[in-house]
């Protein structure tokens, strides 16, 4: 984790398609930023339970350098939007986002934050991207901690490479195109 692989030409290549050049200083900055994310958990709903699990010992978010929660938006640079955002909550979210200092990143934790989920109705905002820009979407209702880590690592890659294109955490293998038609054979213990 401490290695800084990206100070070489590797990152220059990745930056080419985006039309800007990364310098060694930018690499250094990105490397520093990606491992010192101060998070602001904007926890509203069910996903908060899974967020607790993510930060607690079994899964332990701190292994990824994003341990310290800051409950003041002015001190944080990663906004986790965890749970459903209702129309009533939307101004609050927007205000918190505006209070955060640049550079800032936003993660949509769970389906409701990403697109409104199955609450397709009069009170729910159909995804936080309608109100604030979002960097990484993590699907799941709620997502498993492993998916959250995928999302965090995706964000860290994006921070390191300076890429601000929004991205979704995708399954490692797409069940729709795999040969077993989405049926996963679980390996059970001997008695099964």
């Amino acid at each position: 984790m401490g290695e800084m692989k990206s100070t070489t030409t590797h990152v220059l290549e990745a930056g080419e398609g985006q039309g800007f050049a990364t310098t060694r200083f930018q690499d250094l900055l990105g490397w520093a930023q990606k491992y010192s994310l101060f998070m602001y958990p904007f926890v509203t709903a069910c996903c908060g339970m899974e967020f607790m699990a993510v930060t607690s010992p079994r899964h332990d978010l701190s292994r990824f350098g994003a341990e310290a929660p800051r409950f003041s938006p002015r001190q944080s640079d990663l906004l986790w939007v965890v749970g459903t955002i209702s129309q009533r909550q939307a101004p609050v979210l927007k205000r918190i986002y505006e209070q955060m200092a640049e550079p800032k990143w936003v993660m949509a934790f769970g389906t409701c934050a990403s697109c409104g989920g199955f609450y397709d109705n009069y009170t729910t905002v159909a995804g936080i991207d309608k109100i604030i820009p979002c960097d990484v979407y993590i699907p799941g209702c709620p997502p498993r901690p492993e998916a959250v880590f995928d999302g965090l690592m995706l964000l860290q890659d994006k921070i390191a490479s300076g890429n601000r294109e929004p991205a979704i955490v995708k399954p490692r293998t797409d069940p729709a195109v795999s040969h077993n038609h989405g049926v996963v054979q679980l390996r059970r213990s001997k008695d099964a």
Partner: protein
Amino acid sequence: MAEALVKAVQSQFGAAVLETHNQHGDETIVVDAGSWKDIAAFLRDDRRTQMNMLTDLTAVDYPDREPRFEVVAHFCSLTRGHRLRVKARVGFEDGEGAEIDSLADLYGSANWMERECWDMFGVKFKGHPDLRRILMYPEFEGHPLRRDYPAQKIQPLVPYRDVDNIEKLPPFGDDMGMSFGRQTHAFGSHEE
């Protein structure tokens, strides 16, 4: 046990009890809206009933009936262990004139449940100390649980971001996300 309850109310109020029935073991009386509060006070204070808890209060909307709304209260006696459902019918077919006495000074629990009922259905509770919206925001127009309120009609508090194709922002492709809803959102009054 609960039949005796119904009899007690009937003998006390006579003609104000419009209907009684017992379905799935739940004793129900339908009362005249005018004696709503008197009956609640009787249920609370009478030695035979001792209904010390107003468990639930809500309404049901029947748009093609007149009176249109059924206000439904569930009373329960913790000391005697019996329960009773009391209903009253109020409101004209167009949704106006739905008024009933408030039980807030008899039962503390009525306070918020009546506010919710007003918020969701537009049933006014006369004599309620603080009849504001509770679940929706004050700017909201209409009563969402009425059956003629379109489920997807949103009334946003914050304007959506000024970007192209706000309904489906990248990285969500046209074929991604939910197959229903989303594009069909009828926006609230501010756009019409």
